[in-house]
């Protein structure tokens, strides 16, 4: 029955084999892609003008990028090729050396998140860390996380005040965060006409940015305001770019693409905590493996009184709120 449960329909790649194989092949591919790009340029331009080579190479790379397949349908080699292309493009366009990972989900892992309503004090460190980690657009001030200042007597973020900017915590108020809930039965996945957004085997809901056509149906379908759209070409100061990236995570997005919280896939697949959980100064954010009975998130679920937001919609979120 195992093969039926593997929704990605791709074979799991065992982690032991990857790194060593990877580096060699990557290096080779880097050269191959470069050669192909130059070759493509020769075809496109008819001759090679050395001064213009940079921009022509960029054009050729983007031309090849345009015809690539959906990430889930790519073979291992195709993935490596596109990653090499993307890394090269980042170098050409912004002169930064980024490392884009294509690390697969670990078997036996299902990510879940706990948010301690009692402990959150509204310092917004998580928001800031998330913006930095995920290379979010600074021009439109995009943020994945919103924190709400709550009056007592209510327990749902939409009743709170999201525009607060005052010394926190205010006496008699409490704070609640809202972000993508990584629903197990996600309405956005159902809505997407191109399958650009999908659920990875470790439970995170991701977007294949380059496959998205920007119709924004998922945005209308999301009951948690978990998705963000690039209305303009995103701007990230070169100095502030997080260089350790993941194809499905914090790599450079383009205008017209949908994006969202990925539980920091570039970090969590390595075993690290998401940036928000790491930055939280009060320990209000709990992250872990739901399939591991000894994980902290499981302790929270079993020992605390937890609730999920808008549970009545049947979206089955993997984001729990709890109270001490």
């Amino acid at each position: 029955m195992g093969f039926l449960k593997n929704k990605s329909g791709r074979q799991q790649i065992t982690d032991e084999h990857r790194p060593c194989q990877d580096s060699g092949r990557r290096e080779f591919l880097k050269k191959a892609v470069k050669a192909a790009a130059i070759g493509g340029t020769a075809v496109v331009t008819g001759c090679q003008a050395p001064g213009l080579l940079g921009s022509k190479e960029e054009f050729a790379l983007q031309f090849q990028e345009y015809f690539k397949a959906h990430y889930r349908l790519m073979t291992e080699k195709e993935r490596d090729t596109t990653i090499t292309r993307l890394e090269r493009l980042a170098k050409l366009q912004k002169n930064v050396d980024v490392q884009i990972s294509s690390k697969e989900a670990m078997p036996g892992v299902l990510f879940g998140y706990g948010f301690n309503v009692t402990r959150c004090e509204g310092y917004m460190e998580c928001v800031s860390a998330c913006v930095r980690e995920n290379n979010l657009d600074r021009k439109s001030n995009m943020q994945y996380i919103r924190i709400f200042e709550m009056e007592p007597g209510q327990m749902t973020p939409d009743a709170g005040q999201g525009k607060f900017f005052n010394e926190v915590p205010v006496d008699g108020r409490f704070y609640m965060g809202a972000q993508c809930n990584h629903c197990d039965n996600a309405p956005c996945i159902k809505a997407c006409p191109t399958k650009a957004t999908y659920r990875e085997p470790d439970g995170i809901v991701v977007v294949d940015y380059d496959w998205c056509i920007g119709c924004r149906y998922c945005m209308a379908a999301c009951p948690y305001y978990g998705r963000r759209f690039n209305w303009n070409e995103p701007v990230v100061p070169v100095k502030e770019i997080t260089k350790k990236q993941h194809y499905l995570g914090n790599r450079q997005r383009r205008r017209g693409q949908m994006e969202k919280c990925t539980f920091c896939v570039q970090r969590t697949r390595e075993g690290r905590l998401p940036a928000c959980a790491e930055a939280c100064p009060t320990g209000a954010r709990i992250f872990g493996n739901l399939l591991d009975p000894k994980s902290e998130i499981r302790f929270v679920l079993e020992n605390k009184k937890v609730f999920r937001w808008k549970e009545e919609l049947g979206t089955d979120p993997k984001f729990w709120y709890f109270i001490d």
Partner: protein
Amino acid sequence: MTQKSSVRQMIGFITDVTRWSLSGGIGYQLFLCLLVVFMMLGVFAYLVQWKLGLAVTHMSDIVSWGFYIANFTFLVGVAAAAVMLILPSYIFKDKDFHHVVIIGEVVAIGALVMSMTFVFVDLGRPLQGWHIIPIIGLFNWPSSLLTWDILVLNVYLVLNLSIPAYILYCHYNQVEPDPRKYRPFVFISIFWAFGIHLITAFLYEGLPARPFWNNPLMGPRFLASAFAAGPALITVLLVIIHNTTVFKIPKQTFNKLRLIIVISAIINLIMLFSEVFKEFYFPTHHSLSAEYLYFGLDGHNSLVPWIWTAISINIIGTLLLAFNPGKNKPMLLLPACILLFVGIWIEKGIGLIVPGLVPSPLGEVVSYAPSWVEISIALGILALGMFVVTMLLKPALIIEHRFKAEKPS
């Protein structure tokens, strides 16, 4: 009939159609030029949007669908409404409708072209459009309602292009069209007309995240409002054709159209009342959108004047058409139809899309009004639609007229 002669006939058909659609009096030429000017304005605005991204619209992460999708929704209804002419004329063999049915079909084509263009300009990455094409892309069917909509709209466009094209081609050659060849497709297109509008309604109805849309009355109400607005538009068009061309429309046709409009408009108003009752008899959290629409929320009341205007002119138009004080006089019939059309356009366009998205799932309220880019593009698309209708209608009427004159049936 040999292969060669049929090819020659086809070429003759095409050249004649092109000639007829482009030639006309100075007024006609000026009208075409005006349309082209507006289309160029739309193209210019779209280039601005292309260059700077959708940021030039006034849409935001909260109001993520705006003027484009509002117009798309409304125009799908107009396209579906052609069935109100097709159904009586082909199935019940209604004589009064039979010779205006072609006009209904052409309006449907124009509306479809417009609605599909509206979706296209709404896309963030139109170049990646090939990702939805089945086989070379990934088509999330049957899960995504948007794929259903793409499917039904395209098939409806093909049906509405091919049936009239076949009939017109036969009439052009002075041959009676073979019902066995087109009747099955007429049946399909009738079901399809209901299908396109129901599925467009399901696009919204299927979103539990948006309580204002997640409402089982959405589908039926879409149909009712469409069957009022579409025939209203066709009535206006018929009056124009009646007054500017040799193609004369009998009074009976207007009267029957009026009945269709009145019945649909009344059903639409009953459903509207039912919705309003549900939202305001015992307001819940889910009624906030309706409150935002009808009374404004947290000082954001940009939609309030629009919706009350829409409802008022809706009711006035319906009453005028129902009691018909002018006995089908165009002086009264025409404004009543226009009022009804505009009323439904506001109510089912902006008045449906924006409140569905406000307040946001996080309870935030914002205002939305289209930017100059959105308005210019919309005008351009409107001009495109009118252009398509004109280009198709003019030769079609000439062919029909010739056919009738030579073979009175």
